[in-house]
């Protein structure tokens, strides 16, 4: 009896020992495996390290993911085509990024980490104006060049930062094509401006409002809503009862959808709708379906736009980087979707940085800054030229419209594929 129980105890002890041993072995193997299979340390000579945060979760996750894929695509293209040439040597581009969860409170800690611990040599700004505003001061504090690709608010370039450069048209120019089109084709339409309260949307909409007044259009309603708004019916009701024919404004992806859905709920079909940001996303059409048809938006870029070496030559400037088709092909390696303008502007930021490094022929911040200030070139994204504050002045904005499930460039006429269909709901 005693022996039996001893035996039992011994078996139990042995079992435990085996289990413990297995756990230890698994742990050791996985740790060793982790270190062995880890990508080689990015500190290999002959690379240039670019750091940024991007929104892969949270409010800006749709735009952020498109941007990230754009960066991945262009980086691969650059490295496949000889990399960056400095003093005759070829350098590859590598990048370090973190998910900022669309929260501005994450920006400072993550960028500080990129700069002080990951040792990045150049920075890309995060997606969206508020996050870019939070990141921008660090560029000057640590004296590192930062290229903005998704922060369009004009205020970013009014702080006197030396090291922050934009590749995209600033917010104040976003809705200009829409106003231009209306003033030519439907000057009798009464306008309602309804837009999100973040700095980008406010700047874009206010600039458009002033421009509309300059063009002698009638504005009957003007109101902002909080970015977290979940019910816009009171504003839409008010705009409707003010007699508006056209709605201009919006903000980002979520509230753009909200406006269209709630317009339907209150049974109002304005004649013309032009919104910021949201409209260009394929998800805008897929989630709204027929309601999205004939909604206009503004875009920094579409793959159907024709920027090419020939066009560049006609303007007397240099063309740099892949053709639009090349970029789209590379983009498809990283995503099943078509590239959006967020993809293109993020990619353009890397491309412009590379060009500036090559022109400066150095990684030195001052030299690259000088190059960025003096460059005037065309890429697949369009023209690049900044003024002395670093704000973009040469790139042009497009107006686009959903027409039977496909996104068409409809304005300005020189780049348009087709004409605007008017009114909405027809």
């Amino acid at each position, binding site marked *: 009896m005693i022996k039996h129980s001893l035996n039992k105890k011994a078996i139990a002890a042995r079992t435990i020992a085996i289990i413990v041993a297995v756990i230890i072995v698994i742990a050791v193997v996985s740790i060793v495996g982790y270190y062995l299979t880890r990508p080689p340390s990015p500190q290999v000579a002959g690379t240039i390290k670019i750091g940024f945060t991007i929104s892969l979760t949270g409010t800006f996750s749709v735009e952020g993911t498109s941007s990230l894929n754009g960066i991945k695509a262009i980086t691969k293209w650059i490295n496949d085509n000889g990399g960056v040439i400095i003093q005759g040597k070829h350098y590859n581009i590598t990048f370090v990024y973190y998910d900022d*969860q669309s929260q501005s409170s994450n920006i400072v800690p993550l960028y500080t980490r990129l700069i002080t611990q990951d040792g990045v040599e150049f920075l890309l700004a995060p997606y969206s104006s508020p996050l870019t505003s939070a990141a921008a001061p660090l560029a000057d504090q640590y004296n590192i060049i930062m290229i903005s690709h998704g922060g369009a608010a004009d205020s970013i370039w009014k702080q006197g930062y030396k090291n922050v450069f934009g590749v995209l048209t600033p917010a104040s120019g976003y809705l200009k094509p829409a106003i231009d089109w209306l003033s030519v084709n439907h000057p009798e339409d009464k306008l309602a401006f309804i837009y999100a309260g973040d700095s980008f949307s406010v700047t874009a909409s206010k600039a458009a409002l002033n421009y509309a007044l300059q063009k002698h259009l009638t504005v009957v309603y003007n109101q902002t809503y909080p970015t977290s*708004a*979940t019910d816009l019916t009171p504003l839409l009701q008010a705009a409707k009862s003010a007699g508006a024919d056209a709605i201009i404004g919006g903000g980002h992806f*979520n509230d753009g959808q909200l406006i269209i859905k709630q317009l339907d709920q209150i049974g109002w079909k304005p004649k013309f709708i032009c919104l910021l940001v949201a409209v260009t996303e394929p998800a805008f059409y897929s989630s709204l379906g027929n309601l999205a048809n004939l909604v206009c938006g503004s875009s920094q870029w579409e793959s159907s736009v024709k920027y090419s070496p020939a066009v560049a030559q006609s303007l007397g400037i240099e063309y740099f980087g892949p053709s639009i088709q090349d970029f789209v092909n590379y983009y498809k390696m990283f995503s099943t979707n078509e590239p959006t303008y967020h993809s293109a502007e993020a990619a353009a930021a890397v491309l412009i940085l590379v060009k500036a490094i090559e022109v400066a022929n150095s990684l030195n911040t001052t030299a690259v800054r000088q190059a960025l200030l003096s460059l005037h070139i065309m890429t697949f994204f369009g023209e690049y030229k900044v003024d002395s504050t670093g704000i973009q002045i040469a790139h042009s904005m497009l107006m686009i419209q959903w027409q039977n499930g496909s996104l068409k460039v409809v304005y300005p006429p020189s780049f348009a594929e087709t004409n605007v269909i008017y009114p909405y709901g027809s």
Partner: protein
Amino acid sequence: MVDTLLLFSDIVYGLLLGCIFSVMALGLNLIWGVIKIVNIAHGEFIMLGAYSAYFLNLFFNINPIISALLNTIFGLGLGLIFYFALIHKELRNKETITLQDEMVTLVATFGLSLFLSTLALLLFSGNSVGINWSIGSIYVGFLYIPLGALYVAITSLFIIYFVHIFLTKTYLGNAIRAYSQDIIATQLIGANPTKIAAIATSIGIALTMLSGSLLTVWIPVGINPYMGSLYAPISFVIVVMGGKGKMWGSLVGGLIMGVIIDTAQIFIPPTLAYAIAFLILIPILLISKEGILK
């Protein structure tokens, strides 16, 4: 003239919205009024209800009103877990709840709110989603009323009435009301206080999740992990306004809140409308902690 029409239509929308606010506050009120515990994670249960409605719609194409009923079942289960995991320890064998007990549960439910909203963020990502339930509108005189919102408002009123009948006409309802007055009295009428507290809590959570489902009709793309931080404070203000433990107070408070939020936006920027809706709590508390509705 246009302005009166606008005001009138916003009042109508406000009342429709207010019906959902009422159900939303009802769950909080039941827990607060009966077991004297304020559930800081209230907003997160609304969020869970909304996500549950979203997924039920996505996978089984169930509309928000039907999913509200299913949510009630989930809510009863979650409510029991909630009670026994977080609340029971503080209430067990106690005849009265001291301020210290109240603070412990306040902090514990606050931890839960942080936990649930972050878990939702990691599981569902932070991107807002919504339910596409377009069943059109009806045109009444001069104003379109979305049918979805109308059905939801009617459902809400029916639920509030049902809860009222439950609390006043059934044995269990009477036991719950007895518990809210005096825990010892519950024992005198032969009921087990723990059972009563657990049932009341789980009904409260069920109502909360149900309201999350109904809310999705109003927020076509507003379902996200953070939504609780907007709707919880609104619910707190409603319960304080109507008086805790007064179920019909939630109805009146909810309707007032809906009308304030929607009509104030005619006169002031929407952001200030929300500021007013929140700050109204302070004068109410200065007047009376039992609410301003007699």
